[in-house]
């Protein structure tokens, strides 16, 4: 069965989740959530997953409505946002953070804040939500981009919402920061920035994509000396993703934009709403009283 782009991206990001530390679920990013669940079920059983205020949750089935509740049903502790900030985000206990910026440039700077002149922006974007902070402290920083193009991978971001202050292992060690990769996973390729001075390395291009295509679609310099083809995902990963973690395909929301995403979302929420109706009908539950 053909591997869909969002599935390949989920599996690539899952490989970046290692078997230690904490992973805090960010704002609604189902593609990244699926990767965390997949890793938790396979090679990273000891990673501590933190969703909303639920600490140490098990892998949950992705659903638009139920994932939040599920997190609370299978976790061992609760923390409020500030405790999380102090102990996970800032004390280098964070292992991997995934974000999907509107723009990223060759210095590693990302933009989730605004488009245009910062003093008179043409477009206000949602904001960085804390990614600017955790980009410093987390061991591994992964950007995922569903539309690899010169509009997203730009020569220079309009506004630096954040950047990794120190990137190379030597510099990070010197400043007492956890050492780990600064990577970009897109619908076409995988890029990695290994130090402040050198350009991003084109690590791999996805099957069917050429190096030239990726270079043409990237607004900054790439080192293509050792580029390989992205390996296929582990069939066990794919099967778990499709059958256990994300049967509704919520991860696809992470790569769709605009009206296409709204249509897809509509299908998911209609399905889950009907499923709840069915469940009520079958279980003949009494009405909730308030």
């Amino acid at each position, binding site marked *: 069965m053909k591997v869909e782009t969002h599935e390949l991206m989920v599996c690539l990001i899952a490989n970046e989740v290692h078997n230690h530390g904490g992973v805090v679920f960010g*704002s609604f990013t189902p593609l990244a959530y699926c990767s965390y669940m997949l890793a938790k079920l396979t090679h990273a059983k000891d990673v501590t997953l933190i969703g909303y205020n639920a600490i140490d949750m098990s892998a949950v089935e992705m659903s638009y*409505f139920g994932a939040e509740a599920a997190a609370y049903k299978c976790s061992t502790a609760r923390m409020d946002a500030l405790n999380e900030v102090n102990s996970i985000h800032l004390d280098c206990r964070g292992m991997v953070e995934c974000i999907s910026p509107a723009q990223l440039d060759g210095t590693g700077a990302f933009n989730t804040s605004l488009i245009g002149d910062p003093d008179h922006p043409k477009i206000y974007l949602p904001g960085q939500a804390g990614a600017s902070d955790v980009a410093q402290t987390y061991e591994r920083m992964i950007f995922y981009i569903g539309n690899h193009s010169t509009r997203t991978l730009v020569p220079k971001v309009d506004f630096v919402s954040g950047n990794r202050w120190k990137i190379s292992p030597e510099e990070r060690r010197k400043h007492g920061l956890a050492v780990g990769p600064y990577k970009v996973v897109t619908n076409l390729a995988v890029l990695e920035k290994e130090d402040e001075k050198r350009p991003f390395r084109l690590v791999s291009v996805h099957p069917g994509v050429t190096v030239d295509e990726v270079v043409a679609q990237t607004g900054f310099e790439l080192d293509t000396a050792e580029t390989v083809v992205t390996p296929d995902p582990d069939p066990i990963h794919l099967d778990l993703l499709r059958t256990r973690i994300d049967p509704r395909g919520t991860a696809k929301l992470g790569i769709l934009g605009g009206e296409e995403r709204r249509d897809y979302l509509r299908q998911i929420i209609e399905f889950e709403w009907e499923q709840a109706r069915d469940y009520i009908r079958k279980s003949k539950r009494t009405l909730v009283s308030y």
Partner: protein
Amino acid sequence: MNKIVPLSAIDDLVNDGDSVALGGGWFANHPMAAARQLIRAGRKGLRLISNIGSIDVDLLVAADCVAEVSYAMVSLEAFGFANHLRRALESGRVKAHEMPGLAMLIGLDATGRGMPSLPYLGPFGSDLIDRDPGLMRVKCPFTDKDMISVRAIEPDVALLHVTRCDEEGNAQWLGTIAPDIVMGKAAKRVIITCEKIVDREEIVQTAAATNLPGYYVEAVIEVPFGAHPCSHVPHYAMDAFNIWDYSEIIPGDPRLPAFVAQLRGETEEEYRARVVNSEKAQILRTLVDLGRSVTEVA
């Protein structure tokens, strides 16, 4: 001390121009009934403080209650941009103040600790720092390490929605807490809305779940479905169809004035009767019940 008041007490507890911290995060547990009451009261010029906002911020902007928003993120997530906020920021009608997400929490924490500022390992590479008079590059006096100091943030009011609370304001969140506690400790006045007011005895029996003690709290208001259309786990999931309909009313939409007028012209009880009938209440509860771990699925 009995702090129970009706929802309409918000009209006197929140003034035009106040800085108002809104609890909740993402589409989870925003104080929506309190926000609706601000709209009914016709509040103007509010300066909102929102860590991870969504429809709470956007709705107050759509209803023209807002002059400024401090935020780390405001988004309708998969539904798209928070369009009313976005257009208001782009036109200059509302002033934008984006803060690094952790800086906002640390600035609120500073107030809660009686400090004028607090330092942290901030986003050194970010353009947000030098554009914000509330953020300063400093050195650790002991180690000379680079730090970012955040000026204390003191909201006039925090609006927080909880699962249950007693008359003294001892508040328990059984689901998503987000930045609520740090907001509650920073604000001059804390208004708690809750799904249910319970006896002190019930709070005593479950004291480990009390996240904000009553001595921070000025007013307690019982509002079932007080987070609707956002989620309040474990009682209800988000009402995605309601949010869908809202997200279709874009700025300049001829339906917007009627939409706002309807909210403004009805009581919260009438809102609830109109929007959350018993069938919907049951579906929203069932959607919570259907959330499950992967192990349960197998």
